[in-house]
Structure formats: structure tokens, C-alpha cells
């Protein structure tokens, strides 16, 4: 089909982007990985010395992140991201589906509503964050709304600065379970994909990965050591868990992305042939049964795409949080914020380690997706 010349031309055409990708993505990932196992910036006096010698220190930086009292921030951030992902995904999927369901009722002016719901997505997270920051301020926006309209007492809800923590657990007891939870999450995702694509060998890979994760946990037992001084660990007082101050961020992020999920679902619903629904109705299905048994199952691949897209957004969320709470909010931490802090205090190795942990978390979501896509396209 293709001759040799075509292939050469094709290769030449893509080589510039291949080279750029290789340098600016993969080379720098590699460099970050190297910094994360070096001691660059551990001694602040030499952090910016010309030609400073960077020594290999193994997993010390990761060890510190996971177990030193001073780095409770990182653990808070890591766990916050996990909870944020769950609540953000959940609320987006439910709200998105609900909106799609409403728009599917063949209402008048559907196009107008679709545009309205989809519109927030055209804003950048920084704009969304700034607006919602104004709305959710302790003495502003939503809290003074009852006062402005009815003259009632202003609310005192702490959207962004609540210090209460839900679903608490102790890092020392719960830390390992937490990782197991993440491994199970990855496992569930794999099985979901495997089932979807009916690729039996996928089960094997998935199981292998989970085993690898667990054994890695054992192998790097060093990382899983308890906190070096629990008395100074802020988690001892605050507890690690879902911090209520994250709810403001979840609301803003949902506001922005739910319309997008709606568009995905609506396209999916419209793709299901009317005959199927008709047939179900003829067989005596109530309308809710049509949705439960005909429409929802067929939307599964769309839900998967939505989960992947929103999942990688939420795992690397930074701009929204930065715009809404700034770097130094005590209650809201995400890993991206900690990387910025590294620039302030010259802790390059620590920042790189934070980046690598984020990369790892995101790759848990992205790699299976890409992999399965690649397999499907080949067939």
C-alpha cells in the first residue's frame, strides 16, 4: 500500500515534533526524575551555587516527604487531591448526566440552554477561580446574599477556610490502607477498561500492576515508615482526610466542567437509536427503566472518557487552587502549590520529588487509557 518514499516523507514530516517532544517533554521528565533522587537544595547554602555538585541520595527525598513532620503539607496535599478527584468526578458526572437528561426531553430552546451550560468551560481556571473566590469569601458574595436580599443575618459558612476535616484517618495507621486504596482504584479502572475492550490479557497486566504496587510498598518499606515525630505532625491535630475547605474548590471546578460532561452525555444519548427505546417501551418499560437499562449501559464508554479527562485535570489541578486560595492557605493544599513553594525556598530536589509523585498518580489514569486506545486502533 505504502511505498518506501511515502514512508520516508512521513517520517521526515513528524520528526521535528518527535525531536521537540523528546527534548522538551521526555528529557525534562528524566531530568526531574534525576533531581528527585539528588540532594540539590537540601543544603540551602549551596542550592544556587554555580556548578553545584548534585549527589545521588536514592529515595531519601521521597522518604522525607512521606515521613517527616515538617512535610505534613505534602501528605495533606496528596490526600486532598485524592478526595478532590473523587468529589469533583462524582459531582461532575451526576450533574452532567442530570443536565443531559433534562435537555434530552426535547424542550424548547435547547440550543440556548446547551450554550449556557457549556459556556463556563470557555473560561480559564484562573478566571473561574477569581470569580468564585469573590463569591465564597467569608464576608462576601454568597454569604452576604441573604442579607442583601432579605435583610437577614449574613451567613458565616467557611467555604474556603473551614478547619473541619471529614473522613479522617491517622497517617500512621491509615497511610498503608490509603495506598492500598489507590492500588485498588487503579485495579478497578483496569478491569473496567479490560471488560470494555474484552481483552482478557488485560486482566493479567492489571493484576500484575497491582501486585507490583503492593510489593513496591513492601520493598520501599523505608518510605512507609511512621512519622518521625508525630507530636509535631499537623495531621495529629487536624487529621488527614477530606478538608471541608476543599468544598469551595469542588464547587468552582464542578461549575466549570459539568457542562462539558453534559455535552458528552447528550451526544451519547442522541447516538442511541430511537428504535431501541421504542422497543423497550413496547415491551412495557417505564421511562426510568428505559434510562436504567437501555441508556445508561450504552453510555459507559462516554463515562469512561469523561472520567479520564476530568481525572487527569483534577490530579494536576493547580491554577484554580492558586487563584482561589493562594499559596499559603493553611487548609487547602495541592501538590502543584508545593512545587511553587519550592521556588521560594530553593528546595529543588524536594519539588522534583513532589512532581514525580504527581506524574506517577496521573500516569495511573492516563497509561491504561492510552494503551487500550492504541490496542483498539491497531485492530
Amino acid at each position, binding site marked *: 500500500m505504502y511505498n518506501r518514499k511515502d514512508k520516508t516523507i512521513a517520517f521526515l514530516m513528524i520528526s521535528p515534533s518527535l525531536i521537540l517532544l523528546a527534548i522538551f517533554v521526555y528529557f525534562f521528565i528524566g531530568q526531574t526524575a534525576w533531581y528527585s533522587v539528588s540532594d540539590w537544595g537540601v543544603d540551602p547554602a549551596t542550592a544556587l551555587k554555580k556548578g553545584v555538585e548534585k549527589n545521588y541520595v536514592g529515595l531519601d527525598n521521597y522518604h522525607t516527604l512521606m515521613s517527616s513532620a515538617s512535610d505534613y503539607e505534602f501528605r495533606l496535599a496528596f490526600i486532598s487531591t485524592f478526595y478532590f478527584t473523587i468529589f469533583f468526578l462524582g459531582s461532575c458526572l451526576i450533574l452532567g448526566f442530570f443536565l443531559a437528561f433534562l435537555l434530552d426531553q426535547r424542550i424548547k430552546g435547547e440550543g440556548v440552554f446547551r450554550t449556557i451550560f457549556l459556556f463556563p468551560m470557555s473560561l480559564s481556571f484562573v478566571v473561574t477561580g477569581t470569580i468564585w473566590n469573590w463569591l465564597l469569601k467569608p464576608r462576601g458574595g454568597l454569604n452576604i446574599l441573604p442579607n442583601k436580599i432579605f435583610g437577614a443575618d449574613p451567613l458565616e459558612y467557611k467555604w474556603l477556610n473551614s478547619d473541619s476535616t471529614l473522613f479522617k484517618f491517622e497517617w500512621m495507621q491509615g497511610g498503608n490502607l490509603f495506598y492500598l486504596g489507590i492500588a485498588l482504584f487503579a485495579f478497578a479502572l483496569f478491569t473496567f477498561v479490560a471488560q470494555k475492550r474484552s481483552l482478557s490479557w488485560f486482566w493479567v497486566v492489571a493484576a500484575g500492576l497491582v501486585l507490583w504496587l503492593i510489593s513496591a510498598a513492601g520493598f520501599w518499606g523505608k518510605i512507609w515508615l511512621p512519622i518521625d515525630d508525630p507530636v509535631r505532625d499537623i495531621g495529629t491535630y487536624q487529621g488527614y482526610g477530606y478538608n471541608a475547605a476543599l468544598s469551595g474548590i469542588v464547587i468552582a471546578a464542578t461549575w466549570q466542567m459539568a457542562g462539558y460532561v453534559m455535552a458528552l452525555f447528550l451526544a451519547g444519548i442522541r447516538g442511541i437509536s430511537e428504535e431501541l427505546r421504542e422497543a423497550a417501551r413496547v415491551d412495557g418499560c417505564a421511562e426510568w427503566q428505559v434510562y436504567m437499562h437501555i441508556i445508561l449501559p450504552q453510555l459507559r464508554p462516554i463515562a469512561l472518557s469523561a472520567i479520564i479527562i476530568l481525572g487527569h485535570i483534577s490530579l494536576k489541578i493547580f491554577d484554580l487552587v492558586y487563584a482561589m486560595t493562594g499559596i499559603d492557605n493553611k487548609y487547602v493544599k495541592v501538590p502543584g502549590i508545593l512545587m511553587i513553594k519550592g521556588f521560594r*525556598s530553593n528546595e529543588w530536589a524536594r519539588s522534583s520529588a513532589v512532581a514525580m509523585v504527581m506524574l506517577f498518580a496521573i500516569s495511573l489514569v492516563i497509561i491504561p487509557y492510552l494503551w487500550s486506545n492504541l490496542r483498539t486502533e491497531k485492530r
Partner: protein
Amino acid sequence: MSKRLLSLCSLALVFAVMVGSFAPTARAQDDLSGSLEIFSWWAGNEGPALEALLALYGEQHPGVEVINATVAGGSGVNARAVLKTRMEGGEPPDSFQVHAGQELIGTWVAAERMEDLTFLFEEQGWFDVFPEGLIDLLSTEEGIWSVPVNIHRSNVLWYNPAKVAEWGIEVPATWDDFLAVCPAIQDAGVTPLVVGEAWTVNHLWESVALGVLGAEGWNGIWTGETDVMGEEFLAVWDTFGKVLECSNFGEDNAGLPWEQAIDRVVDGSAAFNVMGDWAAGYLTTTLELVPGEGFGYAPAPGTDGVFLMLSDSFGLPVGAPNRDAAVAWLALLGSKEGQDAFNPLKGSIPARTDGDVTNPELYNSYLQSAAADWATDTIVGSLVHGAAANENFAGNFGTVVDLFTASGAPEAAAAEFMALCESSGACGG
């Protein structure tokens, strides 16, 4: 070249010579040429002050093309990150803005990337005009590292004189006084002390610590002479906790900019606020209040006679592309002329003790009183604003305060403080 352009050029030359010969500036114009890149974070409100300095430089050294490289962002958060990438990449600017003291010494001097400026201080006779305490903060044993342009004071207590009289309270002289008067203010439905977002809480901490420890104890933290696990230091945290209980901390301080915090003092919903004296600029210029009438000021409780200072300064990086032009720039910054051109616009006082500070056209009554204190008080360096501790310590200090406010345990905070001292190497020893 066309004839017309040529004649234009010669006309311009003749004109320039005429202007030059009649120019009133007695200062000799020199033959410096090339360019000069000044790196700073002075944009927006602070832009005009920098412009005034650059204009002065342009008059003195017309042959030099001045490049004003500003990176906006409060207290230089963005600028410092850009500077780090430029220095790492081997492209230093000719001179850059940095908070005087450890922010410079702990990062750039420790990295051996700065030139010693002792020669300039000797040449310009600056040892006689800058206070000794200030020069100490700029120096290590190896040399003097930057030229201070302005001085701000961190430990100032702001209040509304009319309201304070109405409530019948006195401006507290110590933190114990403040804690004593606190319940009465609360009973009146007023917040005794207003704080804002995270950094302003850290800012309050340094005034509390200075008030409890005194100047010697404060300096001792950074030389290792003060035991940060000792009784006295635990008392700092204890007092700090009690002071926070008298404030809006944890209620609505998160995300509250310092301007809006001090607004509450002005409108009477809060009694006191501790903020640096850039607040005077905001109160007089933006809110158009008269110092002493619309707003009152006093040293933060327990810190009378001590000047907790921070200062913007410029240094000379090793390998500056236009070193001669940069040295001339630094000489201008330290001169009386330069400091009196810059500071009235910036709303700060000159670092020199011989500035024209009694001139009411240049300096308002707050600045005049600050300048008087500057000449007589004991000078110590601010932690939060880069003078006393290196960037690693200052950047992570917020986590110590977070830990304290989460736990309420002075021992835990002190232990964390100690750990940070050790890992950052900021506390001597």
C-alpha cells in the same frame, strides 16, 4: 544616509551641546556608555519611584541606555523565581532588587554569585551615613553585599484615634497590656486586633516575638544564642496564641488582603492592626487620611525603641555585563540625592541618616517620625521580609505558624522551629 537625515543629526548634535553647556546639573557627565539592565519588582504603585531614579541616572549618564526589567508581583514572588532561572542560566542582570540581609546573603552570597561592595562603601563614605546596625545586616565577614535604597518598619501598631478615645482605652505599650484590654474591646462588639491572609499572621508573629524577647533576644535567634526551645521562647508562642484569640484569626482572615484588614481599623469594626509602614502610604494616599488624626500609629506593643526593619536594596552580581554602569547605578542609589528622589514617592524613609527628612514637602509627619526613630532606635532585621533569615527559613516559616495554630501547642511549634533552624541553617552555629 540621506542629506536630510544628516542635517537633522547635526542639528540634534548642536542642540545637545547647547543643552549640555547650559544644563544646571553641576555633576560632571561622564563617558559611560553601553546599556544597564535593572531588574526589580517595582511596577504599578511603586513604578513612579523607580522611574524617578532611572530619570536621575539618565541625567547623570546620558550615554547609557537603561533597560527597566520589572517582573510584577507583590514582594517579588514572581521576580525572584525569574531571577533564579536567569542566574542559573548564566544571564545575570546588571543589578537586581533584593530585600537587604539574609534573603540576599543566604541565597546569592552563599552561592558566591555576588561582588563585594566594600570598595564602593569606602569610596562614597557610606560608613558614616548608614547606621551601623544596618551595615551589619548587609554584611558577612567576607564583605558588604548590597546598597539599601529605602527603609520600611515592620513593627507598627495602627489604630483610629477617634475610636480609641470613644472606647476609652489606651494604646497598649506591651502585649500584656493588650491582652488586659482585649475583653473590654470584645464586649463592645469590636475585634481587638485584625489580621489578614497568611503572611500578615506571620508578620504579626515577628512583632509579638520581638515584643516578648526584646532586641537582644530577637537577634539571638539568628546567632544561636537564644534557645528556641527555652522558657522565654515558649512564652512567645504562648503570647502569640492569646493574641490570636483576641483577633479575627480563623474566622474571616483567610484571603483578606492587608489593605482590607486595615480598612476595618479605619471604619471602627476593629481596634488595632499590626502592619508594616507601607500602610502609611495606603492610608495617606489612597484613603487620604491625615497622620495622627485620621489614623494613629505606635510601635507594636513591647517594641518601643526597637526598629524592626526591612529594606529594598540592589547588589552587583558576578559577571554583570555592564559592570561600570552598574557601579554608577549603585553609587546613585546610595547618594543623598537618589534616596531623597526615591523615598517620598515610595512612601518610605531614606536609609541614610542625613536625608532631607525634615522637609514636609517630601516626607509627611508619619515618615518624619519614622525617620527620627530610625536615627535613634536599635535596629533589628525582619524575618518575614527577608532581612533576618535565609529564603529557606522564611519560605517555610509559615508551616511552623500553621502547625502552632492547628495544635495550639507551644512545644510542638518550638520543636518545629528548631527543626527548621537546623535544616535551613538560619539560626547560626
